[in-house]
């Protein structure tokens, strides 16, 4: 393999702060050039291991509920918990300091170190210490700091910011570490294997542990009732940091406090399983310092009594606690599941999808909460594909946080006449008309669909006019290399209402298909195929009026518009439910709106629950009915009659999997006699409008490469398979990557009728 070339010659530190957009785009280029292979390998390993480890926790869902309850109660009761914790630490003989700001924390720690005439500090991994830039503060006082976690050691040598919240140097391949160490250290050792590199670092750091006169650690959780800390690690360096020197300082954010040690239980099992995917890491320490055992006295040194300081850091967290959106982020236990299950993160890592300290889906809220809003710009890379949502051990709706950050960033934009007029014409709510044109274009897709289908010939022809796509790219940021779906001459609604002689279904009272805007204006024939398939098993199928559901607007941070649309759609759908019909939604991203996202938008929990419980993916309904009525699908949809062949490669949609509505499609296809191979990627990389955007085209295609490779592997030796996908944007991505036609499962089934 050729050595990766950082053609842009960009250093990670230069692009850590992404408050200007150029830094974000440079960071994407840099990471795709240099870091992508290592990041992919490491995050995807974590991701696989997490699925395996959480499956072994018998009561995983109950444990998550319990963890969520503990965190909710703890954050609600935080001021009281902090008072109790202070008393506990003091009763143990330790010192407690609550720092309002990063500067105050640094000052306190520096003063303690200076008072003890500390020359050398050993430090365990602490992302909070990165947040406050503690090392700079200590070094400025002439005190040496040794990062002892091997990943942090690499970063210290390379002078880079973390790229992941639990494995901060995971963007480094073994080969790049060898190169780095050979450049920075004089050694005769070969350093050509993981073992050799580890031995080299261990020996260097062992000297530091022996000589250190203070240890600084973080804390994963802190119990207010006893002043107990929980610390999770695998290398043993945190144990050394806390056990060997006589002076131990632990620093943590105030959100780490829970009422009591009995609350550690759920987190103890969820954190390692959700993070590295281990049942437990090598060492989990449960201590209420200062330790009773005597400290280690270096050969020739003198014995000193142990001293312990707990430094808790606010640095914006109290503000986050009052914030209707950001307070959710305080529940985060920093496990990294949302990073490892994110297709974009897996491809670029935290040097692009991250800020100066925090990274990944949850990172934007933390950068905004502890810094300034624009530090969260990288959260644009969250496509709201929702794969992180079921992985979060404390059930944080991370896409929703990012959509809200997007709204706030939109609101920071200066208004303009063009944006305002464009927004008014296309349907943006008043507040959302400051959003950039590109966002309003994608957020109001239904308006373009409506006009485009009305004047389809003209609209499609105009796309082919010289300069038209160039104009779309320069004005709206729609990448020229993408194929926009042509506007159909007739919408799904029109096709449905033109049908004649349809017999009512035998299964009463049947279903209503939501005429989602993507299918209605983008792929009406797919909608009709789904109707034919459902009718083939005897269901009566009605079609709702085509109305936007809020998905497109919400994904652009146009929350007012989304809310307005959701609130208009809900009563329309409710009327069908009142008739006894179930709701069927073809486009999985819209299904996910009804199942999950409406809870943020409707302000009517009763209707929301009703809609969530009674909406289904078409083949999910089909499979349910087939099971119940023992239908012979092999006869109704005999695969051998399919003109597109029986060998399929099926890619389910990210949000469809989050809805648990993907496996039924495979069941149906197999029952009909198809030979189905499935993809195993988290997301195709298109993710709605994301891959259409000029600035993210390369990233989107890089993400898609995993999926394309899976197709190629599935076909290796055994010949081509027909491509099948359930999401409209997955179709575009697969056909862009492989240059072939892609079908919806319903289209294949309909073709057998």
């Amino acid at each position, binding site marked *: 393999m050729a050595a990766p070339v950082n053609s842009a010659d960009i250093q990670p530190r230069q692009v850590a702060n992404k408050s200007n957009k150029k830094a974000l785009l440079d960071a994407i280029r840099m990471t795709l050039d240099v870091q992508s292979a290592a990041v992919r390998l*490491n995050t995807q390993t974590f991701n696989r291991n997490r699925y395996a480890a959480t499956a*072994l926790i018998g009561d995983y869902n109950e444990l998550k509920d319990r963890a969520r309850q503990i965190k909710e109660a703890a954050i609600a009761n935080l001021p009281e918990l902090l008072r109790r914790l202070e008393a506990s630490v003091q009763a143990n003989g330790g010192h407690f300091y609550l720092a309002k700001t990063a500067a105050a924390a640094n000052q306190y720690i520096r003063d303690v170190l200076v008072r003890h005439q500390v020359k050398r500090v050993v430090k365990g991994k602490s992302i909070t210490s990165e947040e406050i830039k503690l090392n700079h503060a200590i070094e400025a006082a002439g005190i040496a700091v040794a990062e*002892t*976690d*091997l*990943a942090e050691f*690499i970063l210290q040598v390379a002078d880079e910011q973390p790229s992941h919240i639990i*494995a901060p140097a*995971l963007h*480094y391949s*073994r*080969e790049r*570490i060898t190169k780095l160490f050979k450049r920075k250290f004089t050694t005769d050792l070969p350093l050509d*294997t*993981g*073992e050799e*590199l*580890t031995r080299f*670092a*261990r020996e260097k*750091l*062992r000297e530091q*542990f*022996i000589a250190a006169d203070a240890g600084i650690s973080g804390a994963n959780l802190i119990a207010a009732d*006893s002043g107990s800390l929980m610390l999770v690690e*695998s*290398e*043993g*360096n945190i*144990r*050394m940091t806390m*056990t060997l020197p006589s002076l131990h300082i632990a620093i943590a954010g105030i959100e780490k406090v829970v009422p009591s*040690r*009995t*609350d550690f*239980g*759920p987190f*103890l*099992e969820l954190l390692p399983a959700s993070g*590295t995917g*281990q*049942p*437990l*890491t*090598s*060492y*989990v*320490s*449960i*201590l*209420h*310092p200062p*330790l*009773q*055992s*005597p400290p*280690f*006295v270096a*050969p020739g*040194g003198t014995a000193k009594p142990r001293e312990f300081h707990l430094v808790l850091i606010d640095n914006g967290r109290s503000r986050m606690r009052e914030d209707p959106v950001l307070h959710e982020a305080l529940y985060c236990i920093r496990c990294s599941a949302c990073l490892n299950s994110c297709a974009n993160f897996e491809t670029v890592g935290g040097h692009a999808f991250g800020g100066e300290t925090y990274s990944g889906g949850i990172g934007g809220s933390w950068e905004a909460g502890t810094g300034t809003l624009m530090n969260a710009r990288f959260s644009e890379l969250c496509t709201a594909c929702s794969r992180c949502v079921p992985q979060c051990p404390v059930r944080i709706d991370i896409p929703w946080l990012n959509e809200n950050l997007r709204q706030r960033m939109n609101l920071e934009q200066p208004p303009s006449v063009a944006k305002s007029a464009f927004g008014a014409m296309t349907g943006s709510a008043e507040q959302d008309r400051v959003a950039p044109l590109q966002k309003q274009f994608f957020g109001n897709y239904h308006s373009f669909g409506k006009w485009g289908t009305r004047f389809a010939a003209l609209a499609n022809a105009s796309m082919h006019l010289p300069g038209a796509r160039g104009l779309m790219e320069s004005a709206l940021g729609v990448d020229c290399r993408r194929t926009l779906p042509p506007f159909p001459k007739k919408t799904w609604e029109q096709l449905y209402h033109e049908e004649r002689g349809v017999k009512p279904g035998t299964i009463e009272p049947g279903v209503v298909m939501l005429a989602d805007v993507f299918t209605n204006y983008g792929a009406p024939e797919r909608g009709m195929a789904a109707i034919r398939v459902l009718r083939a098993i005897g269901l009566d199928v009605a079609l709702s009026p085509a109305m936007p559901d809020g998905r497109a607007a919400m994904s652009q941070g146009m929350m007012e518009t989304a809310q307005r649309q959701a609130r208009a759609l809900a009563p329309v759908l409710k009327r069908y439910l009142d008739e006894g019909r179930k709701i069927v939604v073809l486009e999985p991203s819209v299904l996910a709106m009804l199942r999950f996202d409406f809870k943020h938008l409707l302000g009517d929990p009763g209707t929301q629950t009703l809609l969530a419980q009674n909406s289904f993916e078409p083949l999910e309904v089909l499979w349910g009915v087939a099971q119940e009525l023992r239908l012979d699908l092999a006869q109704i949809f005999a695969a051998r009659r399919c003109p597109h062949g029986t060998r399929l490669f099926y890619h389910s949609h990210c949000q469809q999997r989050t809805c648990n509505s993907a496996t039924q499609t495979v069941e149906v296809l197999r029952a009909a006699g198809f030979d189905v191979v499935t993809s195993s990627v988290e997301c195709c990389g298109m993710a709605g409008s994301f891959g259409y955007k000029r600035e993210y085209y390369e990233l989107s295609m890089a993400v898609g490469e995993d999926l394309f490779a899976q197709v190629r592997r599935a076909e290796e030796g055994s010949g081509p398979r027909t491509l099948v996908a359930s999401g409209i944007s997955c179709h575009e991505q697969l056909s862009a990557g492989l240059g072939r036609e892609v079908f919806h499962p319903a289209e294949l089934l309909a073709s057998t009728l």
Partner: protein
Amino acid sequence: MQQLMALESSVLQFAEAAVKAAATVEILERSPATLRDAILRAVGDATRILFAPPHELPVALFSEFAADSRVVANPTPDEMVHSAAGVTEAFAGVASTGSVCVDVGYERTGVVSLLAPLQIAVVAAETIVPKPRDLFRSDILDGKGLKRDFVFVTGPSATADMGPLVRGVHGPHKLHIIVVR
């Protein structure tokens, strides 16, 4: 009888999980001579062994081992840093994860279980609990897990920071667990 079978099955589950976490496990009948032989077999030809006396298991159980000439009774700092093995008791084991819980509040237990390349932990079969969370219950093991300073030790120290998974980082490179019945 039923109790015995439950004990047996939790020991087996424990051993399986510990092996999966890259530890080695031996199950012994409780006797000073057997324990001594087992520990000495595990340390091989090491010339210096650190030992932190037990507080839960009877001291007498370790008496024959402690009498071995290679066991350093009162190690100097230099001896602590340069020993081949460290032997401690564990006050609990965890069946689902194969972890042992080592109390680090006692004098030297922390360093003895941390500094040497080979860690040996001796745990009583009847102190093996089903899950990690059980250590935080007041009705299990007298609520010791709620009061003590301890470490769940699951396999040897490890890292994936240098590329591939490497066992043996700052902490022990090997973990040998002896379950006594």
